[in-house]
Every structure is written in C-alpha cells, then in structure tokens.
C-alpha cells in the first residue's frame, strides 16, 4: 500500500508514468534524482502521507526501502 502510493509520488515528481521503483532502488538509478528533486520528493511524500520527516533523517536514505520504512514508522496507518 505504502509502496504503491510512494511509486505514484515518484512518477509525479519525475514526470514519468512508467517509472518503477523497488526497495533497493537508489538515487543514481533514477534519472533526474538530484538534490532538488530530492527536496521535491520529500515534500511530496510529507504531503501524500501526512507526515513530517525529521531533519536528521533527511540525508540518511540510501534507497527507496529506507524511505518507505521511515514513512511507515511515522505514519499511524503504517
């Protein structure tokens, strides 16, 4: 569930309707995932899931799976 919604956020932010991400996907595997896109992504994730990702975790995601885990921890619906 979280993964599906997360995929949709990725598709919007990277304007690519066929983008597929896995837990193991890293930033350098997605074209255009630079620091700017990262901020947009974090903002969109916060909006989509209604969570606030703490500053100390912002730079710690090494792949999509860690972002998903973080969302699940912060989100009551898990």
């Amino acid at each position, binding site marked *: 569930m979280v993964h599906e919604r997360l995929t949709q956020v990725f598709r*919007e932010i990277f*304007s690519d309707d066929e983008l597929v991400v896995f837990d193991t996907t890293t930033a350098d595997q997605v074209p255009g995932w630079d620091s700017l896109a990262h901020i947009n992504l974090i903002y969109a994730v916060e909006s989509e899931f209604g969570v606030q990702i703490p500053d100390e975790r912002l730079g710690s995601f090494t792949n999509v799976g860690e972002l998903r885990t973080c969302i699940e921890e912060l989100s009551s619906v898990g």
Partner: protein
Amino acid sequence: MADPERRSGRSIAELAAAAASVEVPTAGLCRDLALAHERAGDHAAAVRWALALTDAGGDLAAWTAAAGVLRRALPAADLRLRPAKVAVLGSYTTAQFAALLPLAAARAGVAVEVYECGYGQYRQEVLDPSSGLYGFGPDAVVLAVHAGDTALPAFAEDPGHAVRVEAARWTSLWEIIVSRLGARVIQHTFVVPEADPFGHLARRTPAARSSLLAALNTALGEAAAGPSASGTSASGTSTPDTSAEVGPVERGFTGVSFVDCERLAATVGKRDWFDPRYWHRAKQAVALGHVPALARHTAAVLGAQLGASRKCLVLDLDNTLWGGVLGEDGLAGIALGDGPAGEAFSAFQEYIALLRDRGVILAVCSKNNDADAREAFERHPAMRLRLGDIAMFSASWDDKPTQIRRIAHTLGIGLDALVFVDDNPAEREVVRQLLPEVDVIALPRDPHEYVRALADYPFFEPGLLTSEDTARTEQYRARAQAAELAASASSLEEFHRGLEMTATVVPLDELTLPRVVQLIGKTNQFNLTTRRRGVAEVAELAADPSSVVLCLRLADRFADHGLVAVVIARQQRETGAAAGAVAGAGAGDSAEADLTVLDVDTWLMSCRVIGRTLEDEIAGLIVAEARRLGCAAVRGHYLPTAKNALVADLYPRLGFGPIGSRGSGEGGDGAPGERTDWLLPVTDAQRSPGLIRIVDGRPAGDSRCVPSPQEHGPQPPRLRGLPEPRPRTVGTAESSASAPIMERTMEEVAG
C-alpha cells in the same frame, strides 16, 4: 491525502469517462489523462489536460508531472501561444518556480523559454554585461525575491531615508533591466513576516522592520507608477543621474509590473505561505505547496504585459446576478438586495461593477425574454449593475454558444478574450465543449462564494491602466479626497454630511411589499407601536385612499442599505370632545367642531440606520402627507414593549405635544407599559436637519407630497399596481409572516 483518482494504468477511455462524470475533473485525473494521452501520442490532448490541471488546484507533485508533459508535448501540440523569453532572477531556491512557470504561462497564453540565474546571483547577473542573463536576452525578467533580500535594518534611525535608499537599490536594477536589456520587469513584492518582535506596536513604529517593509512595497509601487501618479518619487534620491536621456524614473516605469506576494501570502495565510522547515532545509522562501500559485499569478501578470489577458466578462442572469428565475419568480420574486441571499447577489454585482470600473467589458448572456431581462435592470431597486454598464446585452432563447459568438462578433474581440460566468453546470459544459477558447468560471453552489470564485480567476489582470482608466482614476481620487474630509469630521453633523445620504421614497408595490411586511414582522427597537401585519392587511391599507404608506430606502457613500423604514398612517376625523381635545392640545385657530388628523398607526426603522437623522426627515415627510390630505395635525402613539425604549421619547423630541396617557390597554406585542399619545399641529412642524437628500421614487401619479421636488430625477416608468390582497399572489409573501429563522434572528439580534 489519499487521492482516489491516483490509479494509473487506466485506459484513456476509462479516464475520459471518469472525467465526463464530473464537471471539473480533479487534478489527479487531469494528470492521468495528460500522461495517458502523451503515451498515446496525442500531444494536443496531453497539453490540454496538463493545462486543465492548473485550474484544478493541483499540488506541487501534480504540477511537476504536468510541467513534464508540457515540456515534452508542447512543441508538437500546435498551440497558438505568444512566445517569450523569461529570466527568473531569484534570491532563494527558485528551481521549482522556474520549472512550473512554463506550464502556468502556457495556461496564460504564453510559451516561455526560461533562464534561471545562479543561486543568489541576481544582482551580479544584472550588473555584469557578460553574464548569462545578457547572453539569454530576455523579454521579461522576474525578480523572485523575498524580504530577506532587503537591506532594511531591524530598527531604522531615519525610516524615510532607509526606505528611499532600499527602494533605489531595486529601481536601479529595474532601470538597468529596462534600458540595457530592453526587458520588462515582474517584481515580486516583499511579504512582511507574521512574526513581529514589536507586536502590535510595530504599526505605530515606522522605524520597525515590518513597517519599513510595508513602506518599501508602497514606495516601489509609487516608483513604478511615476511621480504624476504618486506625487513623490521614492527612487529620486540616490538614482544615478540619467535624466539626460528621458529617464524612466521621471515617467515611472511602464515596463514594471508586480506580483503582490504580500497579498497572496495574506490570502492563504502567512504561516502557510512560508514554511521554516523548507527555508532552513533548502532555502525555499515560498512553501512548495504554494509555488504553483506563485507561478500561476506570475504567468497572469506576464500574460497581461504581453496583451494576453482576458477582456470581457460574459454574465448569465438567473441565479448568477440575482437569486431565482426571473421568468418564473417574477421581478418581485428574485433575491437581490434584501435578505442574506439577496445581499450575496448584491455583493457579487458590486464586485463586477468594480471590475467594470477598472476596464473589464461586461456582457450579458441569458436565456430570457429580452424585455423582461432589461426590465430587471431598469426597475429592480437593488440592481447595482445598470444597462449602461453592459456593453452587449444578449437575452434570447438561442443557445449560449450562439449568443456568445454573437457577443464576440459584435464587440469585435476574439473568443479568447471572453470569460463566461454561469451558475448552471450544463450551460458551462456546452460552452466548454463548443467554444474551448472561452474561459469558463464554475461558480460554486453558494452565492456567498461567488465573489471569491471570480476573484480567484487571475487572467483578468490588466496590463496598464489606459487613458480612459486614468480618467476614472481622477474620479477615484476625488472620492478619496471626500473620504479624507469625512475622516476628519469633528462633529456628528459633519460626519452625517460626509455620508452623503440619500433617502428614496419608493412605492409600495409587488417589489417592495415582501420586504415591508418582513420589516413589520421583525423590527423591535425602532418600532413605535409594534403592530405586526401580514401581506393582506398591508396591501389592503395601501389600497385605501385615506391611508398613507411611506416606504424608504437609504443609501450612502459606502453602501445601499435597502428598504429600511415604513410608516403607515390613517386619516381620521375627530368630532366633538375628541376634536376639542385635539384642538386644545395645540391646533390653535383651526379648532373647529370637527377636524381631521393623520394618525400614525405604524412607524418603524431597521436598526441598520438608527442614529442618522432619518427619523427627523421621516417626520417631515409625515407632516407633508398630512398637509396634502388636509389634516390639521399628526397624531402619534408610543406603545412600550420590552425592546422599544429607544423610541419612548421620539415624539417629544420631534416637537409633538402630549395628549394624555392611558394604561396598558394596548401594549405592542402584549407587553405591559404606559402607552402615550402625541400630537403635532402641521403648522408647528419644525424644519428637518436636512442631512439626508430626499428623493421621491414613486411614479408621477402616486407622487403625493415630498419636499424638494427639484431633486427628483427622471421619473421611473409607471409601475404595476399592487397585487390583490391575497397573501399567495405575491412572490415571497409567505416568508413575511414566517420569515426564515436565520433571517429573522439576524436582524432581531442586531436591532
């Protein structure tokens, strides 16, 4: 927020069906349709849905997706857009803004190529002729800046000087951009932070930073307008002397426009507009959720600079300019002016009238009989818009697309200059389908929200005021001067004079009867006798030649208060002892064995207009009616209730003499108290204060006796007679006896 439409993988047919099932598809649906059409190779449709998304209030992510579609599909979409090269010079992270601007601009009719300066490099790029900015050669430069870029101190020794110096730092940039780059400027205004260390004291502390920022916004506006408009040149002091060539400073900067971020931020709430988390994380001076709106408004101003603004508002009538259906409810049955719904429609008309005043062309497009529709404009007392305001009046039974084509043709403007406003979703849809060039504003169901719906539409943005507009500006200025006078009024009389009040005596007819009965039913404070009467009774009284019913509207410089006062009086013959009592009470020489008096049965006024000398003028009108009927005196009564102590002394204050008091025989509303009776011989009538202009708005044949007839304007067309005194024959008569709880309570609470 979960978005129910957020399921990609649906076919275009499925998505289109979903879109067709709602009037305004959600941003999510627009995005899916844009992406699906792009995949299918239909670039025009992809772009169309990407642009539709900008009207559907999408968030940053949806806009980002749509901006991607636009970037890829626009070259092949064959849209007729004005091309423009736009440089975004920002002092914060403007990458998102720059990325969304092409999408917003395409919606505003402009195909932009965007150049973005290096982070925080805007001054250097403007000042350095070898910078990328000069290589780009922009048509327009957006100064996307924020309050942190100003060099204003937390507290200024000399506030005026600080603001002038700071304004000059910006106008000197404008000057270089205008003269060296030949580009227009779009300046974002500075948002005054909502967190203020001075608290409310800042408002009276010109030296405080928030006051300086507000003054800076004003000074920049004045500098752009030029000295002829402002009387001061904020940029005058430290601008380099360029007056050898006809310096733009002397004439203002016609090429400089603003996006008023201060107003945008206030509209959404400043705490929402600025998100400190993203400021500290990534130097986003505008919360990312509001970057789409910022792009949209910047694009609207850019479009206005390039002449792409919409020019004409095409208005439906029924349930758009008034409540109800004219053809079914009749002129007396439509909601306008009085009551909550009536006030909502009046407010909408007022806003539209102001749009017209600043240059928006108005047209009417209605399915109605032409004569009936025009009659509403000519005869309804609360119509704010006049026929003269409407450049093209189209009321017929032709379908609306046909009428709208005719309007565009007659006015000699393109369909892409029109904006159509209609409460009816079906009419909106047929116009969208058949005339895609016309912008359609989907009015919300609730008329209270109409003004906002129209105000939220940004593409009426005017470029510059034309000379005709400037003439209007003169009028505005005259009005402003009058307001200054009123503000300095030192006495109540001066204040009243400054209000420029006009009271209009209107006929009691099918248009006014419901309101009159409503007032009779609910007025408590200024009500001498509190006698409640229904439609039939009032209509019967009005038809009786020995009775007088006065109905008054009051308007002043600020507002039209509507129908606010009612007097019912009856001619009564007094004989024998009673006549002697009357005569003895002051009728003087005319003391005969019998004489007639005008007996004031009912006198009430809405609490909205208490304390404005209207009662004194009404007393004069009553006396004039008494004279006309050959009455020797006016007799009044005060029947105390729990709520009408306000008028216990009204008659003596107006010069009436007492003719004894009785017990609590007939207390209004059955409340106990001492009833008093009063008499004023017509010969003793005093002059009224004369602070309200009195106009007789009754038809000529009915015009009985009103002072200063020279003030009468052209007589309105003869009105139809009263309806038969049967309650159900009058439009909203039912509501009079049992007005909606809400409506009654509101005015009762207020007065």
